[in-house]
């Protein structure tokens, strides 16, 4: 007896969720597919939805965005796009009815929003911030930005906050994803951001992918790795180290599935094998490396390092790591790593979002320094960035509380005063003390120490770990919240003032992707309704603030940008100031990368690019190599081919760190016996306020679910589609189960994009953070799981504006 079609579909649907009748999505699917020959025009730009920096062209017909296609000449994506990159034109202009189009205001958060004019909105924003500064001091206000904002936007926000409002309370969501990578690069190599480039994908003979589901988080870069592997099946090795088997594991020759939080031991054990089997590069160590330990960065000898590493025998570490780890696998991985012609390590949040994320970064770099797997073709220690402009805008543009533009530390008097001089503001205007880092910032909101905050282009109400704790503070009536964004989110729900912003291709600006590459997107379509570029908002807000606080220095901060039209001239003027004044002479020198140069290239420019001539060639592919990096030649101190001139290591050495194994802040116990880990899914971006509104993407993954190892599922009587309660000491979710040989036994995994209160996993995660980078440990906490029922009706959820 066969099943009917309907029964069949219902049965298959129950694999992830129960049937829900009568659902209608608030999104249409008008067929925009178009032929090149029909196009009115094509406009070059950068993808908005991950850190890869894929270049693409937007097709515009009759003023309407109708299609996207990759640019084959681009050195990032070579023409390829993922599903998000193909489809996000559906959010542009008037293509989506739910775009925020008018400023919205409410004096109290228990009141409904009402539409107001821009004049009124900017008056309110400036009066509230001025009132707060007068009453509670400069540190009672804050800016919380985004790795998705253009560099020009982050730069002008932080300039007005620091130079105008005299506070370093400038933060952004890259603190939640990349801060440990920054800490790792600065402490190991003396300079932030990767040494090499994506070009190493085609030159590497061994890929060591740890803590990264590249296939889903960076699908177009994964394509390049996959292609390299498939074209060289026997000679190129792929090692995938992760507590969870993921789509990335499909191309792996060796999968190291370790228990969550044992990564530091695993990396030290690989170093043990490299030392024991004499696989290290003696010349490289002699010429370029030093050994360091402790908070005081004490210099130690190779012998001391060897004595330290003796504690990490592969046999012992295999027992610590659990999972499928054996001593033989560790030895094999170390051998492949050390002996290959070029080894490229790749990692992202699995390493960074740890309470010892900086240490984990250091230990990956250690392997590269020990073996000399750096600076030569295919050899690189390469952190993959999550957001399109976390590197360019926030790490380089001064978007974190402790850094000023162009990798200058706030606490360094000389560098701080340099910035003040370049801005033409009085010395001493920028406070010498860094502001609140992200977790401290939202703790300060909880405690009522921050009374006014502007949140731009991000949704901390959903993306902060242990978010219920911080939503309480954001609900306070004595905390004034401005949110600028393109759609309603969990954070606009907590705002007093919502400012509708222009989306990418509706404004002009630069994104700097993972490989030090800055790429320009020029406005191609009009923003819907009254949505405006942020750079215009900040300029107008600063002028009003200057009047309210009777402080001409605030006006001085935006004076160079007065009278510029906001769609192109204004961001161009901001970029010129940033690159020509602030980056000139710094390690991320972008003074050759003017708008004119960026517009000429299919992709963009990799810094350092100190001259237009160099920038027009694309900039610097590999840093620190004489003949390839103009600054390596300029700052050369000897005849060696590599010159590690990074600003943080005056000794010009790479530092190998002695870092012991350290587990997560919260380990499973009898009450909460499972590890909980979280991550990204290919179809969605962050909190899904954008991708959830693209019908193809929403349908591909309409709900978050909890992945349970089949052995655990059997033991707990869990079947696919059953509703599972996931509980931690902080919060609770109820999600459908996916029984899957993904997470290792004793671990569950949940995607974090879902906005539904029952499936919003950051209500459950822990807000412990790395003491160095202050990046939270999203990747590990303890939880318990329980089957609460069979499959139940579910529906996708998005935050909508209440009428």
């Amino acid at each position, binding site marked *: 007896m066969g099943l009917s079609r309907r029964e069949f579909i219902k049965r298959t649907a129950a694999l992830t969720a129960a049937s*829900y009748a009568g659902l209608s999505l608030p999104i249409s699917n008008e067929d925009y597919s178009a032929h090149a020959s029909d196009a009115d025009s094509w406009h070059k730009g950068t993808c908005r939805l991950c850190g890869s920096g894929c270049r693409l062209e937007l097709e515009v017909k009759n003023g309407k965005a109708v299609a996207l296609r990759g640019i084959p000449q681009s050195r990032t994506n070579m023409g390829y796009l993922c599903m998000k990159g193909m489809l996000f034109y559906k959010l542009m202009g008037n293509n989506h009815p739910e775009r925020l189009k008018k400023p919205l205001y409410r004096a109290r958060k228990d009141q409904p929003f009402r539409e107001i004019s821009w004049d009124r909105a900017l008056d309110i924003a400036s009066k509230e911030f001025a009132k707060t500064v007068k009453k509670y001091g400069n540190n009672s206000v804050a800016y919380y930005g985004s790795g998705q904002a253009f560099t020009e936007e982050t730069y002008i926000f932080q300039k007005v906050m620091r130079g105008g409002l005299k506070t370093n309370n400038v933060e952004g969501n890259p603190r939640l994803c990349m801060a440990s990578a920054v800490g790792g690069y600065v402490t190991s190599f003396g300079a932030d951001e990767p040494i090499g480039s994506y070009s190493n994908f085609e030159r590497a003979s061994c890929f060591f992918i740890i803590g990264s589901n590249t296939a889903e988080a960076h699908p177009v870069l994964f394509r390049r790795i996959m292609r390299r592997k498939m074209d060289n099946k026997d000679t190129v090795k792929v090692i995938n180290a992760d507590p969870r088997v993921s789509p990335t594991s499909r191309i792996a020759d060796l999968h190291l599935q370790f228990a969550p939080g044992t990564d530091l031991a695993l990396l030290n054990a690989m170093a043990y094998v490299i030392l024991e089997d004499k696989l290290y590069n003696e010349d490289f160590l002699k010429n370029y490396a030093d050994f360091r330990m402790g908070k005081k960065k004490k210099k130690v000898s190779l012998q001391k390092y060897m004595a330290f590493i003796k504690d990490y025998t592969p046999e012992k570490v295999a027992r610590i790591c659990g999972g499928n780890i054996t001593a033989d696998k560790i030895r094999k991985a170390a051998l492949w790593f050390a002996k290959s012609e070029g080894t490229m390590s790749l990692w992202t949040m699995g390493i960074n979002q740890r309470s010892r994320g900086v240490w984990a970064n250091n230990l990956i770099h250690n392997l590269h320094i020990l073996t000399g797997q750096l600076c030569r073709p295919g050899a690189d220690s390469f952190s993959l960035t999550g957001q399109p402009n976390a590197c360019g805008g926030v790490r380089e543009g001064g978007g974190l509380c402790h850094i000023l533009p162009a990798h200058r530390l706030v606490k360094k008097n000389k560098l701080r005063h340099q910035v003040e001089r370049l801005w033409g503001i009085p010395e001493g205007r920028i406070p010498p003390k860094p502001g609140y880092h992200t977790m401290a910032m939202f703790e300060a909101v909880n405690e009522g120490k921050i009374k006014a905050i502007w949140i731009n282009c991000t949704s901390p109400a959903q993306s902060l770990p242990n978010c219920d704790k911080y939503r309480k503070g954001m609900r306070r009536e004595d905390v004034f919240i401005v949110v600028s964004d393109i759609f309603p989110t969990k954070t606009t729900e907590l705002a007093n003032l919502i400012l509708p912003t222009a989306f990418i291709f509706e404004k002009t600006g630069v994104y700097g992707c993972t490989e030090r590459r800055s790429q320009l997107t020029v406005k191609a379509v009009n923003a819907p309704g009254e949505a405006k570029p942020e750079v215009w908002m900040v300029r107008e807000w600063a002028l009003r603030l200057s009047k309210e606080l009777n402080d001409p220095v605030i006006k001085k901060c935006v004076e160079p940008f007065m009278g510029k039209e906001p769609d192109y001239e204004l961001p161009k003027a901001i970029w010129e100031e940033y690159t020509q004044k602030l980056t000139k002479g710094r390690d991320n020198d972008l003074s050759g990368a003017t708008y004119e140069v960026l517009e000429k290239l299919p992709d963009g420019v990799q810094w350092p690019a100190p001259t237009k001539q160099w920038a027009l060639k694309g900039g610097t592919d590999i840093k620190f190599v004489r003949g390839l990096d103009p600054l390596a030649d300029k700052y050369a101190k000897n005849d060696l081919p590599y010159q590690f001139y990074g600003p943080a290591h005056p000794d010009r050495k790479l530092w190998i760190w002695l870092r012991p194994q350290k587990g997560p802040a919260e380990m499973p116990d009898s009450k909460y016996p499972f590890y909980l880990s979280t991550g990204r899914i290919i179809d969605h971006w962050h909190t899904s306020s954008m991708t959830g509104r693209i019908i193809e993407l929403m349908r591909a993954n309409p709900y978050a679910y909890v992945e349970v190892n089949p052995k655990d599922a059997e033991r707990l009587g869990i079947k696919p589609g059953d509703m599972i309660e996931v509980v931690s000491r902080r919060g609770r979710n109820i999600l459908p189960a996916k029984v899957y040989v993904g997470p290792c036994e004793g671990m569950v995994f949940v995607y974090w994009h879902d906005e539904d209160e029952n499936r919003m996993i950051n209500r459950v995660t822990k807000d412990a953070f790395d003491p160095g980078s202050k990046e939270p440990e999203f990747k590990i906490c303890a939880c318990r799981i329980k089957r609460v029922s069979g499959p139940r009706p579910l529906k996708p959820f998005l935050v909508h504006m209440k009428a």
Partner: protein
Amino acid sequence: MKGQFLRSCILVLAVALVVACPAWASKNTPSSKPASAHPELSAQEKLTPCSQCHKDATPTVYKEWYNSVHGIDNVKCFQCHGTYEDIKASPDEATCASCHNAQYMKRPKNKKCWDCHPAHYFFIHK
């Protein structure tokens, strides 16, 4: 029972499920089918990823895709074929150009992409 069930599915899903192989479709059917080619589904059923049903309903196509470069790199059904309202059993070639524009521009004009790159395998050049 499984065999009966699959036969039943294939019969019911008829055209859409068979012509989901564009190589076949290019020779036997017009280049695209209207949205109605896919059997009608409820709004809830449309929230099911294509591969979830097609894994059983068109197992050969599924396996070909899963083991292809598209499958390994997670290029999903809807990226070429669209979703329910605009589904095309045989994709519009402009869709291929989203990722393969250089190849699309220099392709022989008398051929479809899949005449040389068999649908769902892709990496084999005919």
